[in-house]
C-alpha cells in the first residue's frame, strides 16, 4: 500500500509528540513493506515559499514544504497561501492509496478535500483541539480556560496574542498571572475583557473559519482521537462524523538495565516543552523544601525564553538544572535514572506520548488530574493524579512518594506496557485497507456505469492514474525507448535524466524550485535594476547639484572680489564718515537733548499706543464677537427672510382668503341688512298688529261692554217690550181684540232677532 502522512512539522526539526509519533509510524509502515511518503511543513523566513524538497529516509521519504509567506498574518499562519495547492501537487506526484492527516496546522483543513477530490481516502487523527479551535490547548493567552464554542472569547484570545506578540514576541505563548502593573499584563487584561465591534467582527470571521475547518474534517473518511475526552469535544463542536477513540502507539523505548529499588533520594523526571501551560513552575514551587528528599531532572526541547528565564530563577534556588533538549537515544537512559515522571500540566491535555513512553520504561507517572489524563493514568495504580496547579497538593504527594518507597514500588508494579507503534501501524493498516477497498469499490461502480466496451479502457485509465509520478515517468520513457528501438529510431539517452528526476534527490522538484527561485531572482534583479535606476537618477541629481554648487562658488568668488573692491571704497568712505561723524557727534549731543524730550514724548506715546493696542485688541475681540453675532444675525436674518418669504406667501394666501371672506362678509352683511330691514318691517308690522290687537282688544272690550250694555238694554227693552206687549196684549185685548195683539207680538219677535 502507498501511504501518505501529512504533518505540520517533523523530526529532527521539531521533536514534540505528534511529530515524533508520525516519524515512528512512517518507519513502522516501511518496515511492514509499505511505501510511505510524508509531507511536513517547515517555517523559514526569507526562504523560497512552497519549496518542496524530498529527503530519502530508510525505506521511505519525507518531503519538506517550506512556508515562508504569511508568517505574520494570523489567518495565514494556520493556512499558508498556496499551501493546499502545493499539497495537491505532492499528492499528484505520490499518488498514495490513503492520506493520513496527523496535523494540518500551516496548510489548513482543505488538504482533506484536496485528497478526496483525487479519490484518495483520508484519515484524520485529532491529536489536539485544533480542529475545533485555534487555541488548541483550550487556554487563552492569559492562561484562562476558553470554550471552543465561545467565538467572542476566541476573538479576544486572538487579540490577546497580538498583545503578547507586540510586547514579548511570543505569539503562541501564554502569560502567567502576576504583577498587574506590567504594561503587557494590563493591556492583555483589557483586551481579554473587551466588548467591542472589532471583537464582534473578529468573532464572526473566526466562526466562519472554524465552521469551514470542521466541515472539512467532517469530510474525512475516518476521524479518530486518542481520548474519549477529545472525541467528545469534537462532537460537541458540531462534528457529525463518528470519532473513533483509538490510542496511538509509541516507538520502543530501550531502557538500560536498572535496579528495581527506587533511588535515594527519589528521582523525578520532567520531559517536555518549557511553556507556561506545561506548569513546570508549579512543580518547582512544589519542590521548595523537598530538595533533600527528591531530586528533580528537567529536560525540555524548546519553550518560551521568558518562561525559561522564570524557571531558571525558581530552579536556581532549589539547585535544579533546567536541562535542554534530548534525543530519542537518551530517552531510555533518562527513564532508567528516574523513579517517576511528573506532568504538572495546567491545560486540559490529551494523551501525552511521554506518559506512554514512561510506562514503556516501567516508570509511574504523577500527572495533573484532568479528564483527558484520567484516560492515561490510573490514580494509585500506575501513578498519581494531582489537583491541577495546586502547589501544596503536589508538594505533599511528592513528599509522600519520597518517603514511602513502597508506594513507588506498588505504582511501578501497576504500570502496564502501552501499545507499541507496530501494533498501532497494524491497526491503522486495517483501517486504511477498508477505506481503500471502499474507494476502489466506488471507482469500480463508476466504471460499471460505463458502456461495456469502455470499461476495460476506463479501468486501465484508472490504474494508470493510480501510479505515482515517478512510475509514470519511468514507464513512459521505457515504453518510448522500446518503441523507438523497434522502429529503428535512435533516441537520446533518457535513463540518466529519468534517474535524476525520479531519484531520491528529486531533480524535478529542484528544477521546479529552481524555476521558482529563478523567477524570484528575476524579480530580485528587476528590483535591483529599479534600485540602480533610482541610484543613477540620484547620482545625476547630485551631479547637477554639484555643478550648480560650483557655479554658485564661482559666482560667490566674483561677489567676494567685488566685495573686496567695495570694501576698499568703503574704508575710504569710512574715514570720510569718521570725520563727518565727529561733526555729527556734536550735533548728536544737541540732538540727544532734543531726544530726551522726544523720548519722554515717545514714552507717553508708547503708553498711549499700548493702551490703544489693548483697546484695539478689545475692539478686535468685540469685532470678532460682533462678526460672530453678525454672522449669527445674518443666519437669523436669513432665517427671518426665509420666514418672511414664507410669511409673505402665507400672507398672500391669507389675503386671497380674506378677500373671499370679505366678500362673504359683505354678502352676509347685505343679507343681514336685508334681514334687519325685514326684521324692522316685521317688528313694525308686529307693533301695528299689536296696536291693532290692542285696539281690537279695546274695541272688543268696548264692543263687549256695548254688547253687554246692549244685551242689558235689550233685556231690559225686551222685558219692557214683553211688559209692553203684555200690557199691549192686555190693552189690545182690552181695546182692539186679537188682531192687534198678533201685530204687537210680531213686533216683539223682530226686536228679539235684531238683538
Amino acid at each position, binding site marked *: 500500500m502507498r501511504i501518505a502522512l501529512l504533518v505540520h512539522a517533523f523530526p529532527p526539526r521539531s521533536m514534540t509528540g505528534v511529530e515524533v509519533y508520525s516519524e515512528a509510524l512512517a518507519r513502522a509502515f516501511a518496515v511492514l513493506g509499505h511505501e510511505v511518503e510524508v509531507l511536513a511543513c517547515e517555517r523559514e523566513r526569507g526562504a523560497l515559499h512552497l519549496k518542496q524538497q524530498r529527503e530519502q529516509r530508510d525505506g521511505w521519504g519525507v518531503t519538506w514544504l517550506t512556508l515562508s509567506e504569511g508568517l505574520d498574518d494570523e489567518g495565514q499562519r494556520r493556512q499558508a497561501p498556496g499551501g493546499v495547492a502545493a499539497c495537491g501537487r505532492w499528492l499528484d506526484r505520490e499518488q498514495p492509496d490513503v492520506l493520513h492527516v496527523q496535523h494540518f496546522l500551516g496548510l489548513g483543513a482543505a488538504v482533506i478535500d484536496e485528497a478526496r477530490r483525487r479519490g484518495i481516502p483520508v484519515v484524520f487523527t485529532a491529536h489536539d483541539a485544533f480542529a475545533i479551535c485555534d487555541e488548541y490547548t483550550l487556554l487563552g493567552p492569559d492562561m484562562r480556560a476558553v470554550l471552543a464554542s465561545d467565538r467572542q472569547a476566541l476573538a479576544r484570545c486572538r487579540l490577546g496574542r497580538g498583545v503578547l506578540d507586540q510586547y514579548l514576541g511570543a505569539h503562541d505563548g501564554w502569560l502567567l498571572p502576576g504583577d498587574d502593573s506590567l504594561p503587557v499584563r494590563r493591556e492583555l487584561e483589557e483586551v481579554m475583557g473587551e466588548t467591542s465591534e472589532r471583537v464582534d467582527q473578529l468573532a464572526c470571521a473566526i466562526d466562519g473559519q472554524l465552521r469551514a475547518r470542521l466541515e472539512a474534517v467532517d469530510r474525512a473518511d475516518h476521524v479518530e482521537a486518542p481520548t474519549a475526552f477529545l472525541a467528545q469535544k469534537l462532537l460537541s463542536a458540531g462534528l457529525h462524523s463518528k470519532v473513533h477513540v483509538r490510542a496511538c502507539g509509541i516507538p520502543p523505548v530501550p531502557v538500560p538495565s536498572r535496579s528495581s529499588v527506587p533511588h535515594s533520594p527519589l528521582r523525578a523526571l520532567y520531559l517536555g516543552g518549557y511553556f507556561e501551560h506545561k506548569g513546570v513552575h508549579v512543580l518547582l514551587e512544589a519542590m521548595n523544601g523537598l530538595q533533600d528528599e527528591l531530586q528533580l531532572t528537567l529536560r525540555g526541547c524548546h519553550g518560551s525564553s521568558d518562561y525559561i528565564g522564570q524557571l531558571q530563577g525558581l530552579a536556581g534556588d532549589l539547585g535544579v538544572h533546567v536541562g535542554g533538549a534530548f534525543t530519542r537515544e537518551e530517552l531510555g537512559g533518562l527513564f532508567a535514572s528516574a523513579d517517576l515522571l511528573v506532568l504538572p500540566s495546567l491545560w486540559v491535555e490529551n494523551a501525552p506520548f511521554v506518559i506512554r513512553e514512561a510506562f514503556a520504561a516501567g516508570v509511574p507517572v504523577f500527572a495533573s488530574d484532568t479528564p483527558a489524563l484520567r484516560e492515561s493514568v490510573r490514580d494509585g495504580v500506575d501513578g498519581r493524579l494531582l489537583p491541577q496547579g495546586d502547589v501544596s497538593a503536589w508538594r505533599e504527594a511528592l513528599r509522600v512518594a519520597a518517603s514511602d518507597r513502597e508506594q513507588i514500588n506498588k505504582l511501578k508494579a501497576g504500570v502496564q506496557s502501552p501499545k507499541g507503534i507496530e501494533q498501532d501501524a497494524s491497526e491503522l493498516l486495517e483501517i486504511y485497507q477498508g477505506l481503500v477497498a471502499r474507494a476502489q469499490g466506488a471507482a469500480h461502480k463508476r466504471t460499471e456505469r460505463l458502456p461495456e*466496451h469502455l470499461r476495460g479502457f476506463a479501468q486501465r485509465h484508472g490504474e494508470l492514474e493510480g501510479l505515482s509520478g515517478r512510475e509514470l515517468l519511468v514507464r513512459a520513457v521505457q515504453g518510448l525507448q522500446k*518503441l523507438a528501438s523497434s522502429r529503428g529510431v535512435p533516441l537520446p539517452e533518457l535513463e540518466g535524466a529519468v534517474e535524476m528526476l525520479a531519484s531520491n534527490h528529486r531533480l524535478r522538484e529542484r528544477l521546479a524550485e529552481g524555476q521558482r527561485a529563478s523567477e524570484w531572482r528575476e524579480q530580485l534583479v528587476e528590483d535591483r535594476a529599479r534600485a540602480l535606476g533610482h541610484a543613477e537618477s540620484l547620482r545625476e541629481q547630485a551631479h547637477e547639484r554639484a555643478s550648480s554648487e560650483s557655479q554658485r562658488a564661482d559666482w560667490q568668488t566674483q561677489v567676494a572680489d567685488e566685495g573686496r573692491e567695495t570694501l576698499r571704497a568703503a574704508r575710504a568712505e569710512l574715514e570720510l564718515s569718521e570725520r563727518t561723524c565727529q561733526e555729527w557727534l556734536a550735533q548728536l549731543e544737541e540732538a540727544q537733548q532734543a531726544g530726551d524730550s522726544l523720548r519722554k514724548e515717545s514714552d507717553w506715546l508708547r503708553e498711549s499706543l499700548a493702551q490703544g493696542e489693548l483697546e484695539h485688541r478689545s475692539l478686535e475681540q468685540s469685532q470678532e464677537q460682533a462678526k460672530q453675532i453678525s454672522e449669527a444675525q445674518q443666519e437669523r436674518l436669513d432665517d427671518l427672510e426665509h420666514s418672511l418669504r414664507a410669511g409673505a406667501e402665507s400672507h398672500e394666501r391669507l389675503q386671497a382668503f380674506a378677500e373671499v371672506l370679505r366678500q362673504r362678509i359683505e354678502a352676509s352683511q347685505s343679507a343681514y341688512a336685508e334681514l334687519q330691514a325685514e326684521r324692522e318691517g316685521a317688528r313694525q308690522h308686529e307693533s301695528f298688529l299689536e296696536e291693532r290687537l290692542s285696539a281690537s282688544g279695546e274695541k272688543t272690550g268696548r264692543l263687549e261692554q256695548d254688547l253687554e250694555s246692549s244685551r242689558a238694554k235689550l233685556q231690559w227693552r225686551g222685558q219692557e217690550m214683553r211688559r209692553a206687549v203684555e200690557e199691549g196684549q192686555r190693552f189690545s185685548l182690552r181695546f182692539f181684540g186679537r188682531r192687534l195683539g198678533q201685530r204687537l207680538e210680531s213686533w216683539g219677535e223682530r226686536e228679539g232677532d235684531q238683538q
Partner: protein
Amino acid sequence: VSHPISIVIPTLADHDLLSRALESLQEQQRTRSCVDEILVVDDSGDETFGVWLASEHPQVRVIVHPVNLGFARSVLDGVQAASHEQVMFLNPDVLLRPGCLEALQETLDSQPHVAAVAPYVLLNGTTVSAESLPHLLVEEGLPRIERRELEVNLGHAHRDFPDGIPVAFALGGACLLRRDEYLAAPFDSRFEPFYWEDVDLGQCAWEAGRSVLVDPRAVAEHHHRGTIGARVPESLVRAAIEKNRLLFAWKHLDEDDLAENLHNLAARVIEHDLAEDREALIWLLMALEQN
C-alpha cells in the same frame, strides 16, 4: 442504373432519432429505382427496442447486441450481415438530403479507385459545413485534423474536382464504401474505444493508392446528438482521442516524421513530468500499451 445499398445504422435505442433517420431514408427511396436494405445495430441491450422497431419499421433488419460493444463492432456486425455489395455507414443523427444516396453510389460505381465517398455534411442543417473536407496536418511529429476551406455549390459537382473532392478520410457517421473491401480491412481495433478509427481507415486507403472523396452533389445534415459525451467522462474521451492520435502517428508517419515524433515525445515526457502533467503521461502510456 442504381442498385441496392445496405445501410448500416448503429444506435443506442433512441427511438426519435432513429425514426427521423428512417424517414429521411424513405425520402431517398422515392428517387431510387431499387429498394435499399436498412440494418439497425442496437447497442443499448434494450430488448423492447427490437420489438418496437419490428412493429413500427418492419422493413428494417435489426441486430441486437445484448451489451454495448461500441461503434466499431456495431459497424462490423452490420457490414457482415449486409446483403449488398455497397454499404453505407450512417449515424442516426445524420439526415440525408434528397438524391444523396444516388450521387454517392454514382461516384463509387464510376471510380473503382475510390475506397470511400462521403456526402457534404452540413452542421445541424445550416449551411455551415464544419465536418466536411477534413485535411490532415502533421506538426512537430503529431497529426492534426483541419477543415479544408473550399467553396462548394451544394448539390453540384465542384468545378475543380468534378469527380469528387479528395479528403483525408470519410466521416464514419456518413460514408459509402464496398462491403468486401471493408471486411478485408475494417476499423483497426487499436483505436478502440472510439475516435480516429475513420481517419485511420482513410489514411490506409490513401496509402494503398486509393482515394477518399466528398461528393458535394450528395448533402447530409448532422444534427448533433452526441452520445459519447453524455455517457463518458470527459477525461476518458480526451484520453481516447490523445491515445489514438499517438497510435495514428506511429502507424502512419513516415520515417522522418516518426523520428521527429519520438524525439519530441521524449522531450515532452520530461516536460510533462516537470509540469506535473500526469494526464499527458497517461495518454502516452495507454498508446504505448495498445501499440
